[in-house]
């Protein structure tokens, strides 16, 4: 029963998604919503703004550098939680202890 129910729900969701994809504009067409003044400004003014050849680097570390700070904060938060959860038995500065444990095994 649960199997049939989940299949029906998946089919309904899949139908909605396929309908949405078929409504999407063509890839790379000139009148796409993504071809607006923002991307035009980036591609045309990147050399005089930043003197950088790689537009992606200019966007992620100059125009959108605040967003990249968010990304590095996500990395920092992730590694801090991993250190908290998995590294609870390893106190800071006790690397000799860890090496001894390695030798036992």
């Amino acid at each position, binding site marked *: 029963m649960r199997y049939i129910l989940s299949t029906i729900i998946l089919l309904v969701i899949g139908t909605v998604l396929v309908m949405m994809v078929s409504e999407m504009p063509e890839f790379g067409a000139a009148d796409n919503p993504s071809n607006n003044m923002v991307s035009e400004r980036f591609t045309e003014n990147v050399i005089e703004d930043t003197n950088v050849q790689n537009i992606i680097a200019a966007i992620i570390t100059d125009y959108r550098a605040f967003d990249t700070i968010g990304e590095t904060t996500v990395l*920092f938060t992730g590694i801090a939680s991993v250190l908290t959860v998995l590294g609870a038995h390893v106190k800071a500065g006790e690397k000799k202890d860890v090496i001894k444990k390695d030798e036992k095994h």
Partner: protein
Amino acid sequence: MKNTNNVVLQTVVKIMIPFIQVYGIFIIMNGHLSPGGGFAGGTILGSSLILYSLAYGVKKGIERFPRNHAKVLESAGGIVFISIGLLTMLRGGNFLSNNLFPGLGETGKLLSGGIIFPITLAIGIKVASTIVTLFYHLLEEKKI
């Protein structure tokens, strides 16, 4: 963890690691000239250290790149990034506006792009140490 029959693996890894690390540093430092950047190059650098740990054992890997160094480098990457932003505010612009250096440099040269080059370096160091720390800790958890 005893390494007895790993002579071929260890020799190949010993030859390959310098090239992998030079390639990673190249990708980080040329992030504003060619495809690449801090995240991709940092991943390559970190995976070279993971490769060393896989071939020689975690004990030697931790000896080569201690856990505390990884933690310090990781925090330093973020601090460098944010302090570059604060320095640009001191020079009268917005947060992370590209006015830290008097000129932007010549297009196509290594030292061009203003703050993009130091920010990419900081991101690369941070990503590399993050990956290595994650690997050490996941492996440690499995053994104990």
